[in-house]
């Protein structure tokens, strides 16, 4: 006992005890999961995210009244959402294999976040970033314009994943699990869209002293019900201006009615003169042609570049990020801005699906939320006077033939091996 090391044992014991105590107290019940407000968009909408905490509280309470919490979701019948499915997907993970609940937290939350903001813990490592559902903007879908996707579109994405991104396939989920997750994704979108509408409404009708500015009869009603949150909810539902959120809700319910109408693809069956090689050649011209005396081309070269490899180097952002202001918005939870790169069409990886039909949707409708424009002007009369419009749909089908073939052009398939010789990329 004449060495100082005699202290080691008691010291170790004390440290172990301390660690044990910290562990035990730290491993208690986690606080219930909460949705986060979309502070970045609230700020862009004019709300001061730091100063007006009271307004945020009203907003959060109203959203809770309309949509519940992550553990106990709720949806008004007007939204068209199925609460049983939502409950299956929501909450903490429980249940045995085949009867699991909490599916969203099991499979999706680490990338897409508890509020569906696409900013879960793993999101920052991914490129492209996971989808932020809260705007209701979806890229890969079969509906017109910026309309929401159909259930079948979401199911396709879940089943096949999105090659070329970090989104994997969830094909092995049971049918009812898949349906529940789809419903929950829609729920997060509806909730996010409603949040933006509500905050716009609040910005307009907010009185710093008394809180909400209500019409006299609404104040009466609210007094009667003694429930300010409920009254705001009623107001929102009855409002007929920008605050009317059931426009978004109806859009989701009516997605099936907004399918892109696809005219039949020219083929050998209908037209004996049809030749794939010729169609590819026409498609190639349209791909490279921006303006022409005769008809407007695709002008795809403008972004995808003369090599079709998407390497034009221009700085573009998608709609989720274009308004994000570095530093100040990062502090509110926005992910660092990331340049969106046009696709290299020669790789043979088509994110939204490789069927001719999928490519048609992409060219015809553009990619919602990205700088990829729609191709509805292809075939409209050219700059020369007196030219007539060509069949838009037919021309798009030519472009589809061209881009389907691009990965199989000899120059796409060759890669340089270590010794400098060129080899087929599949044999690398």
């Amino acid at each position, binding site marked *: 006992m004449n060495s100082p090391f005699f202290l080691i044992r008691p010291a170790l014991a004390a440290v172990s005890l301390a660690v044990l105590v910290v562990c035990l107290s730290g491993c208690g019940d986690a606080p219930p999961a909460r949705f986060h407000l979309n502070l970045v968009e609230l700020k862009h909408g004019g709300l001061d995210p730091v100063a007006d905490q009271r307004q945020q509280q009203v907003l959060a309470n109203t959203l809770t009244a309309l949509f519940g919490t992550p553990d106990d979701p709720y949806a008004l019948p007007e939204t068209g959402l199925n609460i049983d499915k939502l409950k299956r997907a929501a909450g903490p993970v429980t249940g045995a294999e085949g009867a699991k609940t909490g599916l969203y937290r099991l499979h999706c939350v680490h990338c897409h976040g508890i509020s569906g903001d696409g900013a879960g813990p793993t999101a920052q490592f991914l490129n492209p970033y996971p989808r932020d559902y809260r705007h209701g903007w979806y890229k890969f879908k079969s509906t017109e314009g910026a309309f929401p996707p159909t259930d079948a579109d979401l199911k396709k994405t879940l089943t096949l994943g999105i090659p070329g991104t970090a989104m994997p396939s969830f094909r092995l989920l049971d049918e009812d699990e898949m349906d529940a997750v789809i419903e929950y994704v829609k729920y997060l979108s509806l909730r996010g869209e409603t949040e933006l509408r509500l905050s716009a409404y609040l910005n307009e009708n907010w009185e710093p002293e008394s809180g909400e500015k209500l019409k006299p009869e609404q104040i009466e009603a609210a007094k009667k019900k003694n429930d300010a949150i409920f009254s705001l909810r009623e107001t929102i539902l009855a409002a007929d201006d920008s605050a009317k959120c059931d426009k978004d809700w109806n859009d989701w319910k009516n997605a099936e009615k907004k399918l892109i109408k696809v005219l039949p693809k020219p083929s050998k069956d209908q037209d004996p003169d049809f030749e794939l090689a010729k169609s590819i050649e026409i498609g190639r011209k349209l791909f490279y042609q921006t303006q022409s005396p005769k008809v407007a081309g695709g002008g795809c070269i403008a972004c995808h570049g003369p090599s079709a490899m998407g390497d034009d180097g221009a700085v573009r952002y998608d709609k989720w990020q274009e308004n994000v202001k570095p530093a100040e918005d990062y502090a509110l939870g926005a992910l660092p801005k990331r340049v969106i790169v046009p696709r290299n069409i020669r790789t043979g990886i088509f994110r939204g699906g*490789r069927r001719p039909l999928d490519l048609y949707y992409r060219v015809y409708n553009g990619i919602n939320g990205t700088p990829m424009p729609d191709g509805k002007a292809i075939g409209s009369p050219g700059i020369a006077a007196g030219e007539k419009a060509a069949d838009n749909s037919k021309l798009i089908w030519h472009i589809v033939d061209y881009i389907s073939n691009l990965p199989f052009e000899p120059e796409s398939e060759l890669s340089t091996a270590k010794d400098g010789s060129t080899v087929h990329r599949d044999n690398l």
Partner: protein
Amino acid sequence: MGKFWSLLFLAVPVLGVASFVWGWQEKIWLPEDHSANGGAIDHLFYFILALTGVVFVITEGAMFWFMWRYDSRSGKRPPTKFVHGSHTLEVVWTIVPAATLLFIAIYQMNVWADNKMRRPDMANMQDPPVEIEVTARQFEWRFRYPGPDKIIGTADDLFTVNELHVPVNRKILIQLKSQDVLHSFFLPNMRVKQDAVPGMKQPVWFTPTQIGKDDLVCAELCGWGHYKMKGRLIVESQADYDKFLQSLQEYQSATQEPAAAQKKDIP
């Protein structure tokens, strides 16, 4: 303490053997072999298990017996005789394991060659192997079947993900690739496990013999989602397999959304 230590050491072979018997009874033993190539691999496994098992039980038993018999408190002294080196003994304990190892090395050679070196002959016209390209990526399995031209890498290829359909009783030749990091293509019921290395194309082959669904898992820690990098091997009759390829072909060449009544699941 008495004979405590000797009993403790006896527990090692007893519990060791018991755990194997229990695993067998509870069916947490090897996954069922559904392949033509698995029998030889299982045979090697059982052969080595028997060999090492017997040696294990004998040495553990001998150790127990000496500890029990010559416990210091019993006062019995072992009839020890200290020797400084025994040429014969050393030769024996070198030759016996060396010969055993050499025997195993030669004995397994054919199985190894069959499973890792003798690639199925693509030019075999009687029974051509079914060639499928498998690409592993974080965290899913992507499959590519040759189209009507029977060549992988052309415009008519068929693509699918996480569900690997194969015909029964045919030699399946997998061309294994990785898109990002190391993965391992593991089909427990086919007795197949092969690392997928980025930048390389590894051939893997097996012959399924039983129609049904089996697991396909990743057996190499490949990132945070490794645990859910699961797929399914679907072994089906040649007719069903052809039907599957047909529906995949139809799906993939779609130029119109099928009418609501004809909507089918994505193949």
